[in-house]
């Protein structure tokens, strides 16, 4: 009896263990997907060849080029029962089946699965999905080099035909941008957002300026003086030294981040972009002749103690918190944050601070920002394996309409918000949706970057002060820089190593006790040896070809 029980228990244990092992393995996804209906759309690598082959076959057979089959069978997939997977970058994750998504599906007659990942994790998630042969149907291609890689791998669909047939809004909204994208010659692989990006403003607390009887700074000297006064002259009048002038965090400083972008502008440097030197060499912004002067100025601010000292280790939201809680009086960010999205709920002081925007000019009156031309190098792309390209076209078309942009940014009308005055862009959030967290959980705002039109809801509903700030920043985008539309082989090979060296250089220049020029020379030498010189040569060559296109 005992022996029998032992046997039964043993068999059960083995079954449970085997089940747990097989349970861990998950379901294997089929590696090859086929178009469920319609014909397979031409893909990036194979597209031109296939079209050419089809064309020659018909010609050889003596048939006219436009056949009956070509007229009736679309050259794109259109399986409405297939789920469209979209990978979206967002720091907020909404509920899986939220109101906005439901409405988007209803309006476009599609089944959608939107995966949200934070901006910093986007490329990691995308690369992992691609390597696992699970390419999302729609995803964001962040730069020319990535786009080139996807095109060479043949994983992108040419959406030209389906967009022209089914998405008039997309064609209309992007008609000025699409022809300027090299990858889109006689095709549409990259669908750019049509909105103009918001460059960063120098946002300053005007109530602190009033308390200290100071004017809005207009040049580098007055900016340094205001920052000093904000730090040492008790701008909040509480009798305690608990304030700083400027708040920033390191990841926003390096690369094309917004921090100090206006200060570099006052030295004539288009931060984060490529520049052409006097000898015609095209190089990176940190080799601009005024770079050392700009860094010396910024280092001067740090040494004066007017910059919030946690800048290396502080997380971004904590850095914003310094501004929200009245510990810092200035930061560089686009006006839509400080003067709109955060205003007044994020600010802890009562009454909330009053804000203004400064234009800082350099010694010779130089100022400005580089024009942000995000749409030329990045945009939405569609997987060649997508089973419902027509559905994607419908989604893109709806999102690029006013109605679609309102849905993605504001939510479902009369459920999540209502218009007070649509002309003036005044809205009122309803019920629990007044709470930003509830609004975003229901899908509001989170997907607003998806196929963004030229007049997005976020711009139309800006508060007057934020609109003023955005306009000022747009007016200040006067700095010229070198735009190159070709992918760099050198960057593909050595890009991350080169970027790493520069990030370290900038951080060290802000902290070191060594001579700044010595640190700069050491890192620049390493950067040049790691691929920088080859990249300069490559870029200079490209610029020779493209100079006339952009000027």
């Amino acid at each position, binding site marked *: 009896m005992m022996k029998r029980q032992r046997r039964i228990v043993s*068999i059960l244990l083995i079954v449970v263990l085997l089940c747990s092992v097989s349970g861990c393995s998950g379901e294997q996804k089929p590696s090859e997907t086929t178009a469920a209906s319609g014909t397979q759309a031409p893909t990036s690598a194979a597209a031109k060849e296939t079209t050419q082959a089809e064309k020659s076959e018909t010609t050889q057979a003596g048939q006219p080029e436009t056949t009956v089959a070509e007229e009736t069978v679309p050259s794109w997939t259109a399986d409405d029962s297939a789920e469209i997977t979209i990978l979206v970058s967002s720091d907020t994750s909404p509920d899986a089946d939220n109101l906005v998504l439901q409405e988007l599906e209803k309006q476009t007659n599609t089944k959608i699965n939107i995966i949200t990942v934070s901006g910093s994790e986007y490329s990691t998630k995308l690369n992992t999905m691609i390597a696992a042969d699970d390419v999302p149907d729609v995803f964001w291609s962040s730069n020319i080099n990535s786009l080139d890689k996807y095109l060479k791998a043949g994983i992108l669909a040419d959406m030209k035909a389906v967009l022209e047939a089914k998405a008039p809004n997309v064609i209309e909204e992007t008609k000025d941008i699409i022809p300027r994208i090299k990858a889109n010659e006689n095709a549409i692989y990259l669908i750019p957002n049509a909105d103009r990006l918001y460059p960063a403003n120098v946002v300053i607390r005007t109530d602190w300026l009033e308390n200290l009887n100071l004017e809005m700074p207009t040049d580098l000297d007055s900016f340094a003086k205001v920052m000093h006064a904000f730090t040492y002259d008790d701008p909040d009048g509480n009798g305690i030294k608990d304030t700083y002038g400027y708040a920033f965090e390191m990841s926003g400083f390096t690369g094309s981040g917004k921090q100090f972008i206006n200060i570099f502008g006052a030295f004539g440097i288009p931060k984060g972009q490529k520049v052409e030197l006097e000898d015609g060499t095209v190089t990176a912004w940190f080799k601009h002749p005024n770079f050392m002067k700009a860094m010396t100025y910024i280092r001067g601010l740090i040494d004066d103690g007017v910059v919030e000292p946690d800048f290396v280790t502080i997380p971004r939201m904590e850095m914003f918190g310094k501004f929200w809680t009245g510990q810092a009086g200035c930061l560089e960010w686009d006006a839509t944050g400080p003067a709109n999205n955060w205003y007044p709920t994020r600010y802890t002081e009562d009454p909330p601070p009053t804000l203004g925007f400064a234009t800082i000019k350099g010694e010779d009156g130089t100022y400005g920002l580089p024009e942000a031309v995000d749409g030329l190098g990045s945009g939405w792309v569609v997987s060649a394996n997508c089973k419902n390209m027509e559905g994607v076209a419908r989604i893109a078309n709806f999102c690029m309409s006013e109605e679609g942009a309102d849905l993605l940014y504001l939510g479902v009308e009369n459920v999540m918000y209502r218009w007070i005055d649509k002309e003036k862009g005044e809205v009122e959030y309803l019920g629990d949706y007044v709470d930003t967290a509830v609004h975003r959980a229901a899908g509001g705002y989170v997907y607003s970057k998806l196929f963004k039109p030229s007049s997005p809801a976020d711009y139309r509903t800006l508060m007057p002060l934020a609109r003023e700030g955005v306009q000022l920043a747009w007016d200040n985008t006067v700095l010229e820089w070198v735009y190159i539309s070709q992918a760099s082989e050198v960057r593909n090979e050595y890009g991350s190593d080169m970027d790493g060296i520069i990030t370290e250089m900038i951080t060290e220049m802000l*902290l070191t006790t060594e001579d700044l020029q010595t640190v700069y020379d050491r890192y620049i030498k390493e950067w040049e040896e790691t691929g920088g010189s080859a990249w300069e040569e490559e870029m200079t060559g490209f610029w020779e070809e493209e100079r006339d296109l952009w000027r």
Partner: protein
Amino acid sequence: MNTTERSKWKKQIGYFRRYWMLYAMLIPGIVYITVFKYVPMYGVSIAFKDYNGFGKIAEAEWVGLKNFRRLFETNAFRRAFYNNIIISLAKLVFGFPAPIILALMIDGIRTKWAKRIVQTSVILPDFVSWVVIYGLMYAIFSPNTGVIRQVASVIGYNGKLPNLLADKETFRAVIVGSHVWKGMGIGTVTYLAAITGIDQQLYDAATIDGAGRWQKTWHITLTGIRGVIITLLIIRIGHIMNAGFSQIFAISNSAVVSVADIIDTYVYRIGLTQGRFSLATAAGLFKSVIGLVLVLFTNWISKKVDPDSGIM
């Protein structure tokens, strides 16, 4: 097959039939190891191919040792390798004896409830993620708002404080210190379990012979757990190239990357962020081979010292 061999086989089969339940229980383990440990090793071939993440691995072009050559030409990899060794050795030197010492100290506590409280509380840090620990460290060391700043202000010091989390001179100490603090508890439990297994009569006999506390610790306790110490040391040395990805990823920053970047963070950066899978696999494989060699070497040494020790 002669009679002796036949009877040997018969004996084996009889043994198998008698204990078939135990053998059957091996199956899930074998399946697990095969499916999750050996089958994925096919991916190691990426290190010898030019694979960019698109398409099938089998179709990628073979490039021999090109990826390894490229790795060693890269300053960032050489630096990551160097940092990896320094940080791992420091963690081994300071982290390995710490739980032994703590276990001996806890074993010395005579009050049962106090012993339990200490035992439980030393384990707790092991369950806290590195992201949370970074939050704690930031809250303590922040030169502007940290606890140290508050304490300094209370005692009247308002001058500049060093940022330990952004200082190249101190950052490795922060890495090793936080590693020892977090990992010490779980190792301590293992040693305490081993200590519990030592025959109490040995201590009683030693007391009668006039042995002092130190002598008992040295000759009985440490000798009694020597086998466990050696086994754990071999396992630890096998992991010496794992310098702590999640820790360093969570707490490092651009100011200290030159002293904190290790092979795993380098692999993550070039592999997952940049999508250069061949290079990343080559770096990972290089790391694993070193780990394997070190395990075999340590095992060989420990067998030379004590033939009964070692793991194989």
